[in-house]
């Protein structure tokens, strides 16, 4: 009797969990077939449900390629994302290396300080950025967006690099120094290989943070700095065409690629940790 009750409970739990996973992933999966709809609607046509080949087409993908606004948006997103991620990675990695030194003064406070942009609601960051950056002439420039996005992305780098440094034995560096290695050589030969996966993961996080950011772009960016999410924003509010679904499908594929890259990096990180 209690055995059956336990089984029922387990069944109910599995159902709840399955529904939860469905809730997470199905909304994304639904978009993919709809992006191949030959009709300009957001719903499944009868032809699509019959798997009629004529009901599917690549026309919305073609319209991304043909539309100069989308092409510009893609260019802007990568341009801003790459530079913001590069800046965030350099600053974040250096800071993480400093902060993980055991003798760093006021370590907790400084860590909290550099991570604060990540835990402040982005709308408020955007308001501040809008006032200050516009005032110093960075409004409606790519440079302004790069700086703002780097600020949002740097905390991710600090966190991921810190994680790889957490178990780092600082006596190794001293040992290297005593063997005659300069600080740069010691860093390059000893510290860099260990933190490299964290640096790359952090860079990916920072890139994704910029790539996905839209509120600051809405406030600070002009028409020449439109990014993919900014273009999607106006696409949803203004001309609702399935081109958005095609872009969305591409972005889902891109997200999976990033996810795979992060997984691989973490694996290699573990391996290095085990080696040392």
């Amino acid at each position: 009797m209690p055995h059956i009750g336990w089984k029922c409970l387990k069944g109910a739990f599995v159902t709840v969990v399955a529904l939860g996973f469905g809730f997470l992933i199905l909304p994304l999966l639904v978009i993919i077939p709809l992006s191949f709809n030959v009709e300009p609607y957001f719903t499944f046509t009868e032809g699509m449900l019959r798997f009629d080949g004529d009901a599917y087409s690549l026309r919305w993908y073609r319209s991304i390629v043909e539309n100069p606004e989308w092409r510009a948006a893609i260019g802007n997103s990568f341009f801003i994302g790459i530079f913001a991620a590069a800046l965030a990675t350099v600053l974040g990695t250096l800071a993480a290396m400093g902060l993980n030194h055991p003798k760093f003064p006021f370590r907790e406070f400084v860590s909290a300080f550099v991570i604060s942009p990540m835990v402040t609601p982005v709308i408020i960051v955007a308001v501040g950025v809008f006032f200050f950056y516009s005032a110093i002439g960075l409004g409606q420039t790519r440079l302004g967006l790069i700086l703002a996005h780097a600020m949002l992305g740097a905390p991710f780098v600090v966190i991921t690099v810190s994680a790889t440094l957490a178990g780092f034995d600082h006596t190794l560096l001293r040992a290297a120094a005593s063997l005659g290695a300069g600080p740069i050589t010691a860093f390059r030969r000893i510290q860099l290989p260990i933190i490299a996966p964290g640096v790359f993961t952090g860079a990916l996080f920072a890139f994704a943070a910029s790539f996905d950011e839209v509120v600051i772009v809405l406030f600070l960016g002009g028409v020449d700095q439109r990014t993919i999410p900014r273009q999607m924003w106006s696409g949803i509010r203004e001309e609702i065409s399935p081109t958005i679904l095609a872009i969305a499908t591409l972005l889902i594929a891109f997200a999976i690629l990033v996810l795979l890259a992060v997984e691989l990096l973490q694996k290699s990180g573990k391996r290095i940790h085990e080696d040392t």
Partner: protein
Amino acid sequence: MKTNRILPTLLWAVAGFGSASLAWAEQTLTVVSFGGSYARACVEGYHKAFTEKTGIRIKLEDYNGGLAQIRAQVDSGSVHWDVVDTESAPLLTGCDEGLFEYVDDLELPPAPDGTPASEDFFDGVLTDCGVGTLIYATVIAFNPEFIEGALPTSIRDFFDLEKYPGRRGMLRAPATNLEFALMGDGVPTEKVFEELSTDEGMRRAFRKLDSIKDHVVWWETGAQPPQMLADGEVVMSTAWNGRIFNAQVQEKQPFVIIWDSHIRDTGTLAIVAGAPNLENARKFVAFATSTQAMVGVAQHISYAPVRHSGLPLVGKHAVTGVDMQPHMPTQPENSRNFLWNDVEWWSERQDELTERFNAWLSR
């Protein structure tokens, strides 16, 4: 060593991109309009011809009307728009505030038969800061596919949730909605603004809107109503007549326009104060308000010319060959009962009513 080389390269690249976009702006004219099928009609109707004639490239941007973006540019001193397509009430307000250049000295082209522009334009469409280009109507439109029983015929049906259940689309602003509300409540068109000027009339309008508030989806751009009607998101919507026309003929949608009690207004071109390409902007406005340009637009989207010489020249739709005349808002068949927008009235009360409308919306 490596970083030494990378950093200057990065800076150089950033700077290079920045200056490239500056050089781009010099040889172009930035024209800002309402996007979607209307913007396409303007491109086909006269933008291409203008570029061909003058060599000036037009950079087209979209906005949703209003003065916010123009104010932001003029106030901050960094104006990057040249010509804007505006509605008449914001034009008047903006002119009073010094947001637009004066165009009352602009030499406008005569009609094809030589009639001088001053006689050819309709009364009241030439103002200090703007030159009228078209007449458009805000109408009620519905999708018969989602309506059971007899089709709606009047503004009263729009507010009748029992007879026609389902969601309604309305502009997310006080303008047009307050007028529709009173007309839907039985106020004759000629009394609408008089009634709205009283406190009781204003309360009456909000009360009428209250009666359908929970069933309204609010739109902000002209492209949304036809989309929402097609998706069945709403069964009826207020909309600009040209957008509905476009969906009817270009996308073969079965939409129907209720011409009864529509609100009529003029569309106008204006030049932003301190426009970076002022001379080209003036050339553009003169070109765009020629009879040919107006007819060109009217043969792509059902907005009527504001020149006497224009209306008879409007023929068939340039793409589908549909006869445009029956779709013009000025057509006698469509003009039996309508309301002219009271520009002065709105220009005085816009801010106050927007604040009140937003507070009402959030409740």
